[in-house]
């Protein structure tokens, strides 16, 4: 029983990483129309930048600064690499982001080395909160709470601010948004940067949980795509739920049959695609 709880909780944490990734991927797929294969590399970058910033500004500073730094790098990548590809065959952006991911991974290897690095979290967060449930550390609880807070902030931004309303409108009909005087180039750039910022945040949080390797993001990327499909393409809430569901499901399966913990993700996807092809929440338009 304790082992099951342990694995469910671990699954929830991994699910949070999937969810943060899937949210960013979903945003970018929605407005920018790009399947961003470099999302995992941006995640890794977030972890590594936080690693280098921690000695200078501490863990808490790095936790805040690193995601925004990664978001800025994302903004630059959108401006220079992605923007020329809007309106072209989706294959172009697929290839580009795939190539970008490999370049970024190699840059990480060049700057930080190919071997894994430990990422230390503050002592205040590393202690278990309970003697019985030793796995419930402060850091893990913090990670779940911060992820939920970040997600809630994103939903508030999309619901209540004009930029958010325009992003939601643009998901449905970018052309009409443009005819209403909105600079859609800037809107797409902001949207891309916000999506990347979420990858960066997931990177910092994942670094403290899983450690740093240049490919840490790549292994989270595929399940995150699965999360989007399970949750329903076009629904941010669905992406979030999809991430948590597959994370927890993998955790449960680990308890009984560890070898199948990777496969179960794809089994869930297969079942969802057969029973409900549009995904769990992929019914109506965005964010309904």
């Amino acid at each position, binding site marked *: 029983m304790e082992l099951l709880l342990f694995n469910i909780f671990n699954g929830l944490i991994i699910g949070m990483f999937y969810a943060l990734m899937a949210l960013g991927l979903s945003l970018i797929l929605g407005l920018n129309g790009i399947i961003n294969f470099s999302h995992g590399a941006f995640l890794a970058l977030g972890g590594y930048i936080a690693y280098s910033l921690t000695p200078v500004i501490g863990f808490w500073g790095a936790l805040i600064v690193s995601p925004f730094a990664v978001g800025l790098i994302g903004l630059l990548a959108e401006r220079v690499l992605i923007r020329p590809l809007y309106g072209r065959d989706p294959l172009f952006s697929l290839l580009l982001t795939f190539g970008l991911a490999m370049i970024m991974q190699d840059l990480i290897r060049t700057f930080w080395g190919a071997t894994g690095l430990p990422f230390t979290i503050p002592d205040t967060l590393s202690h278990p909160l309970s003697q019985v449930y030793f796995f419930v550390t402060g850091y893990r609880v913090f990670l779940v709470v911060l992820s939920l807070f970040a997600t809630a902030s994103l939903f508030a931004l999309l619901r209540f601010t004009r930029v958010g*309303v*325009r992003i939601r*409108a643009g998901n449905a*009909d970018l052309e*009409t*948004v443009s*005819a*209403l005087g*909105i600079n859609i180039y800037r809107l797409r750039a902001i949207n891309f940067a916000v999506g990347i910022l979420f990858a960066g945040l997931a990177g910092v949080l994942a670094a403290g949980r899983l450690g740093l390797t240049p490919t840490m993001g790549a292994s989270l990327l595929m399940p995150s795509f699965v999360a989007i499909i399970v949750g329903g393409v076009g629904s941010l809430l669905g992406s979030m739920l999809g991430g948590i569901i597959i994370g927890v499901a993998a955790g449960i399966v680990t308890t009984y049959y560890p070898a199948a913990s990777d496969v179960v993700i794809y089994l869930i996807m297969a079942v969802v695609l057969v029973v409900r092809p549009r995904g769990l929440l992929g019914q109506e338009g*965005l964010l309904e």
Partner: protein
Amino acid sequence: MSAVLVAEDLQTYYGKSHILHGVSLTVNEGEIVTLLGRNGAGKTTTLRSLMGLTPPKQGRIQIFGQDVTGWPAYKIARLGVGYVPEGRKIFGHLTVHDNLRVPALTKGRWTLETIYKLFPRLDERRSSKGGQLSGGEQEMLAIARALLLNPRFLILDEPSQGLAPVIVEDVMNTIRTMRDEGIAVLLVEQNAWLALRNADRAYVLGDGSIVHEGPAAELAADEKRVKALAGASLETSAIDAVT
């Protein structure tokens, strides 16, 4: 009377098909100009070309005396051009209020408050989803959205489409009010009689070129000609007679 819009020799393509073969038209301050034509004559394409949504391969567009050839749609809109697209294109999954928060913020008399005063029905339905509105309400929302840009030039693509005759009259009254307040209007209509009754001047498009231009009243008086040029059927004129 100065020109709000001068378009010269627009040549527009959709992929490889050549849709507009040198369309030229002018809209002056304080007038309603209607652009008529049969289905597929290129009316919507002309409007999309003017808005920068389907940029012409050749030709020149001046709006408020400024050369806007090749400009993206958002820059043209920000000059003070309101566009009400074919099929209204309201954001069905957003509330009425959120639909009205999409347009760029501009200075002028039209703000969310004054718009809600002009369209009390939209005020009542503020928190309804755009997709739940009736056709007439959606048309009002599309016009309201364009007005929030505080335009000096309004482009409307078939505002009467799919609306009950009574509602069409409401829409036309709104358009005439706008004209009287100094907004120039370019109106594309399938319903030729309706358009000619409300417009000052008319152009007729046929197969991607202008085949007629002149005062609206003059064209309206020549029923045969309207039928021949604009494809207006007896049925539409009969419906108009009832309203």
